[in-house]
């Protein structure tokens, strides 16, 4: 999960490394993920979200589809 100056730089990195281009995430979306995942990490209540919770969290900020589903088997052959 890397920062890039622009989408063109993502394209350059994917081409150079021979990897498929995957979803782009805005800084606003990233901040929402950071708060949801880590906002209570220093408390007794903190825990990692379960798979269904993860799908819900991603979906609520517009990150939808099998790429964001930890239970998806679509990627098994590309591991």
């Amino acid at each position, binding site marked *: 999960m890397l920062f*890039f100056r622009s989408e063109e730089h993502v394209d350059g990195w994917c081409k150079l490394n021979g990897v498929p281009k995957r979803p*782009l*995430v805005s800084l606003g979306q990233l901040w929402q993920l*950071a708060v949801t995942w*880590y906002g209570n990490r220093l408390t007794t209540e903190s825990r990692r979200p379960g798979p269904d919770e993860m799908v819900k969290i991603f979906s609520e900020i517009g990150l939808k589809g099998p790429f*964001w*589903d930890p239970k998806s088997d679509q990627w098994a052959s590309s591991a």
Partner: protein
Amino acid sequence: MDFDTSVKLNIYEMIARTTRMPASIDVALGIGSSMADVEQAFQRLYEKRLLVLEPGAPSRIRMAPPFSGIETQHRVTIEEKVYFANCAWDAFGIAAALKRDADIESTCGDCDEPLAFKIRDEKPLPQDYVVHFAVPAAQWWQDIIYT
């Protein structure tokens, strides 16, 4: 509070205060336990995907997300303390976990030029930069260090 939660909170309290990732001996001294018991807790916390241990070194923590146990390209400064994050998400995650304004220095994954971010009043200042997630969620823990 159960033992594993005590261990986890001690880890996070120490890294937040000192910026340094504690080893099992530090946690054992911190909570008045044995290194062996703490290292068993480390393993259980790893199995819950809350810690990543250094390969072959059960006393050492590589990641207590969002914090990194080693220096990385993602440097987060909060109130003159410098922390290192595991990835872009975790760079923002440190500011979110500590609930403080933060200055984040990182680099473009493509051209390696410096990129700077500021978290102010619980949100990032606007920038046109983007984040690329190269690995699907179903594969994040197949190689979490790469992810």
